[in-house]
């Protein structure tokens, strides 16, 4: 025990989350239906404890604690993502409380799966070894597959789960293939050894390039980047809305975190090559995401394409990081992704919270048409949705503008002003479909013939989620300083 003591201590937050997950699943059968809320509270309590632990783990900024013979790294970069993920997971739990009850699938193991997925994400952001990162990815993905199909009575939910599983397994295979090739090159799966091996063999080695491409493809699936985005609309639409929110925000953030660490720490020597690759991918992603979103009538599908587009914007920051030269060495680009995804979390969680609780005659109202005239019936809910949509479109003074500002600033600094211009023109395209939601809420009168107009089923938990989301969108839109400072500090440990 004493041998592993420091290592276990480093992983204490992850261990607590996994233990709580097991506890929740074990306790579930012996908990009566009326007291299942307690399981959710137990999960949130564990998250709060972990937040304190993670915050306390890093006392000085430049410390990198390596644990389990360099398989896991605890640094400020990981801390940034973990704190974000704790927040996302707690808001998801609060959002799920009323949602699951209304959908009549309020089962305790749901919270267990959220925690398991979260522990996978935490391992991903802390992985210093390709296999650790792969394990984290799988733990996250497997939990998400189950959660996607959680609404057993709905065929669409099951279909989405099956699709997600097949495509996800496929992409994991590709990722693993890339990892195995790199192992062949370096004789190790540690990011440090890979960086050395890649540096020794040079960028022209075809094996290096092939394995880089395979890893990029594997992560491309997780990030929902074009052309690996096909699963996103179906899965986002079919999954229970709270799960969709968790996927759109948590899984995306964790995947980006791991992706950035792998490509910067492990494959940083190939900057010139992968930045061109991701340049193509980012343009394709934001063009396709934004254009296809226009024709969607289902709001979950629309937000799926919008989340694809947002991945494209975040990737611009990554291209900028790869392209930048000089003293800053890509820091602004990487930090801009962290800022972007953190802010994106607030607005996306808020939007999905509204969607999940919008009911039309007892059924989830997820068509854009169902929002018709919402401003008249529920002005507050409509106004919140307006803020989330404006933020997703990137209109100041909301958080979405700040996120885009930093990404484009990094792009311009890296000499990619033309890329920023293209991306911003497609932001105008995106404004069209976001504003369409505002339009139906505010400017269309509800159809008098429809028997049951949709309205938001409110509950304290939902109000809490919406309050947090809107506070994040507005406060960070007006006072982004703390978040920006935090991201700029945290990114420094990534090297």
């Amino acid at each position, binding site marked *: 025990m004493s041998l592993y003591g420091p290592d276990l201590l480093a992983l204490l937050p992850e261990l607590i989350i996994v233990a709580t997950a097991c506890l929740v699943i074990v306790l579930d059968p012996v908990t009566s239906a009326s007291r299942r809320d307690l399981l959710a509270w137990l999960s949130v309590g564990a998250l709060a404890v972990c937040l304190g632990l993670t915050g306390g783990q890093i006392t000085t900024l430049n410390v990198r604690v390596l644990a389990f013979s360099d398989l896991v790294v605890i640094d400020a970069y990981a801390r940034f993502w973990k704190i974000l993920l704790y927040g996302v997971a707690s808001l998801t739990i609060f959002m799920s409380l009323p949602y699951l009850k209304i959908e009549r699938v309020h089962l305790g193991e749901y919270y267990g799966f959220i925690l398991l997925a979260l522990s996978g994400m935490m391992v991903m952001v802390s992985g210093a070894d390709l296999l650790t990162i792969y394990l984290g990815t799988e733990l996250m993905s497997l939990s998400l597959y189950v959660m996607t199909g959680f609404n057993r009575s709905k065929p669409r939910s099951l279909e989405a789960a099956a699709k997600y599983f097949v495509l996800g397994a496929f992409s994991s295979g590709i990722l693993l293939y890339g990892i195995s090739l790199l192992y062949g090159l370096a004789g190790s799966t540690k990011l440090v050894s890979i960086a050395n091996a890649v540096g020794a063999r040079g960028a022209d080695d075809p094996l290096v390039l092939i394995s880089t491409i395979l890893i990029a493809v594997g992560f491309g699936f997780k990030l929902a980047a074009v052309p690996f985005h096909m699963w996103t609309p179906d899965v986002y639409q079919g999954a229970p809305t709270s799960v969709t929110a968790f996927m759109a925000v948590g899984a995306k953030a964790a995947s980006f975190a791991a992706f950035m660490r792998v490509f910067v720490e492990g494959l940083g020597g190939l900057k010139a090559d992968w930045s061109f690759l991701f340049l193509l991918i980012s343009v394709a992603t934001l063009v396709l995401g934004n254009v296809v979103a226009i024709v969607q009538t289902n709001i979950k599908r629309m937000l799926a394409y919008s989340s694809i587009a947002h991945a494209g914007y975040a990737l611009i920051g990554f291209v900028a990081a790869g392209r930048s030269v000089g003293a800053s060495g890509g820091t602004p680009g990487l930090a801009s992704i962290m800022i972007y995804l953190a802010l994106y979390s607030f607005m996306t969680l808020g939007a999905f919270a509204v969607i999940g609780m919008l009911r039309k005659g007892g059924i989830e109202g997820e068509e854009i048409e169902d929002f018709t005239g919402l401003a008249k019936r529920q002005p507050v809910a409509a106004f919140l949705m307006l803020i989330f949509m404006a933020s997703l479109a990137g209109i*100041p003074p909301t958080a979405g503008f700040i996120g885009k500002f930093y990404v484009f600033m990094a792009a311009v600094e890296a000499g990619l002003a033309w890329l920023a211009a293209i991306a911003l023109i497609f932001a105008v395209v995106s*404004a*069209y479909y976001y*504003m369409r939601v505002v339009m139906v809420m505010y400017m269309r009168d509800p159809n008098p013939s429809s028997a049951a107009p949709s309205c938001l089923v409110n509950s304290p938990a939902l109000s809490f989620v919406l309050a947090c989301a809107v506070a994040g969108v507005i406060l960070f839109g007006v006072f982004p300083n703390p978040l*920006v400072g935090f991201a700029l500090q945290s990114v420094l440990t990534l090297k």
Partner: protein
Amino acid sequence: MYLATESAAKWIALAATLADLFVALPLWWLFDPQASQMQFTEHVAWITSPPIYYSLGLDGISLPLVLMTAGIMPLCVLASWNSITTKVRGFMASLLVMETAMVGVFVAMDFVLFYVFWEAMLIPMYLLIGVWGGANRLYAAIKFFLYTLAGSVLLLVAILVLYFYGGHTFDILALSQGTYPASLQTWLFLAFFAAFAVKVPMFPLHTWLPDAHVEAPTAGSVILASILLKMGTYGFLRFSLPMLPDASRYFTPMMVVLSIIAIIYGAYMALAQIDLKKLIAYSSVSHMGFVTLGLFVLNQQGIEGAVLQMVNHGITTGGLFLCVGVIYERTHSRLIADNAGLAAPMPLYAALLVIFALSSLGLPGTNSFVGEFLVLVGTFLWSKVATALASLGIILAAVYLLWMTQRVVFGVPSPHHFPKLKDLTQREFAMLAPLVILIFWIGLYPNPFVSRMHQSVANTIDSMSRAKVAPTAHPSARRAVPLLADSGEQPKTQDPSQ
């Protein structure tokens, strides 16, 4: 505002806009016309990395625009008093958000802060048109939104590029001192042009304006015409000219040609309109052509005329739109044919309408005469042909406005509206009378206005003429000041310090 009742919302909005006006008015006297730097500045750190400041300041160019904004907004609230019946609270809240953003645009001294204000008015204006607008409001609202947004996103890229070329600062004054390569200036000018020309709107980009004007409620039309359009010309004056002097000179012929096309084309379009609001909308395109013309002849008279004309157009066209709103509340029609022959039932209204129309066509003694005259003097120094063509716009303005007045005031009354028409109420008179006073004040004694902008305009021209890249292109601008004094036409524009 959602806590208040609907009638309380009106009073709160009125009180807020009036309070704003009373806070803004003393600036007129406290402002020092001799000072060449920004006044009433405020400089607070906002974002540390990159350094962005909450930085405000006024100079002689922004002072009249701020005062105009503060003055127009209470009138907008008054104009909406009875005409807005649904969701009053949301309407008034949108008006107040608009005012915040519009004043912010005119006083922001940090480029990012400017952009935040510039974009922040998109959503409230979108709602104003889309929720409380006319029959075709959805189309007009999204058209307005997408046009303006598409223009302004390129501005953001330009701001970021300037940051890295201009010494890692977003400070507008510092950026105005910078020197930028000629090819970069060309690109930046085009990006600025995309943002500002859409807002003005200049000729090929104007198509959103008639739709937005026609569908917007009265207050929305007034805000659009009086204030929003000025943000575009303000942008040209504050950013394009001082920051990109070489590109401005390079593009001057294009800008002048576009302005003249706008003047003549807008006037011709106005001639053909049967809808009062559309007529005024196209007349705005024409009148804003004078403003851009004055700006881009790049001399003291032209720019001073342009700034004055920005204020004049705000007063006059605002008045015209308020008049249309008044009559629309009574007849529920904006068509000239339905509103003919108002002189007999509404004599006071008819008199005010005639005053606004005469002011709009630039009758000597009214405000627009002074502004248009200065612009034409400035243009004359640049090109005589351009002056002749632009003067055509004044003649056409006389044609369409007098023809409109003739039909509306003295035409054959339409039978079904005639009996129930009442003249102006006290509220309506109160919202039109201040504009009439301003029309004659500026028309007869423009000196207080011109002297306050004199130094700032001279600064702008100064910063342009400091040869930055092409030393050969020293403009005739500095010579222009004595020229005006020689002509003796406008002795009042002379600042005592000159």
